[in-house]
């Protein structure tokens, strides 16, 4: 199976998403999957377009910023934009940890023939520790947001359906939320942002689709 992943790293948010995606890269490689990694300045529209046409990946993971109608890459260049090139996602399964893109680009991608689109229909919010910026994988507060996101991808790669994978991710988010609520600091803002992410993570398209 061919997988394409984009990992821009031009600010704290993209740096964190990129580093947490290393766990996905390791997992996919161990499973013997071919994963094409468009990291840093390679996360451009030109590279994405080229990879989609030449390698025909079944699964695409977009890390980066976004908006209702787009997913962006290195230095916020639009990689996929509704009304322009969402047709590139035809016959693909997509996971976009890219703010808001499931609001408009998601449905339009499905209309253009994408199999499934899992993403967020509003801002993805997370807390991180300033002193962990050089090593995001050791950040336990960011982990409560980013591990459930990774769980979704790992579940899909294992061959579970989109709906099963979505549910696993939602369940892990919820477990983390309940842990916070029963902790010594239940009023922490962290709980609010976790609930926000749970509410705004959406699955569009075929709920029974799975990767081969």
């Amino acid at each position, binding site marked *: 199976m061919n997988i394409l992943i984009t990992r821009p790293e031009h600010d704290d948010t993209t740096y964190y998403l990129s580093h947490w995606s290393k766990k996905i890269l390791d997992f996919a490689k161990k499973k013997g999957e071919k994963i094409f990694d468009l990291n840093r300045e390679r996360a451009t529209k030109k590279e994405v377009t080229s990879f989609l046409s030449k390698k025909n990946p079944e699964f695409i993971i977009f890390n980066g910023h976004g908006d209702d109608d787009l997913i962006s890459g290195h230095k916020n260049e639009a990689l996929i934009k509704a009304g322009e090139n969402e047709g590139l996602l035809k016959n693909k399964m997509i996971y976009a940890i890219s703010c808001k893109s499931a609001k408009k680009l998601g449905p339009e991608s499905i209309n253009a023939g994408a199999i499934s689109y899992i993403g967020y229909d509003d801002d993805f919010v997370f807390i991180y520790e300033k002193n962990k910026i050089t090593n995001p994988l050791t950040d336990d507060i960011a982990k409560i947001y980013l591990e459930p996101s990774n769980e979704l991808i790992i579940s899909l790669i294992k061959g579970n359906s989109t709906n099963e994978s979505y549910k696993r991710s939602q369940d892990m988010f919820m477990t983390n939320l309940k842990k916070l609520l029963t902790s010594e600091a239940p*009023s922490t803002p962290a709980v609010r942002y976790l609930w926000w992410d749970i509410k705004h993570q959406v699955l569009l398209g075929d709920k029974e689709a799975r990767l081969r």
Partner: protein
Amino acid sequence: MVSEEEIKDLVIARLESLPENQKISIGSKGEFNKYELIESVKKGDEIGKKIIEIELEFLRALKKGMFG
């Protein structure tokens, strides 16, 4: 009925409990420390409105017993 000012005070109190070493990433809007967020809530700008919206959504869920 809770007034807008009361909601703002509640959100600011929550933000004040955020440790100094933590920042919040709000998608493409950027990354903010607690002082920047408190200032946004006080001013009522786009970021402040988002933080209030998040708090209200959480309070609605609590009221519905979503975490029981």
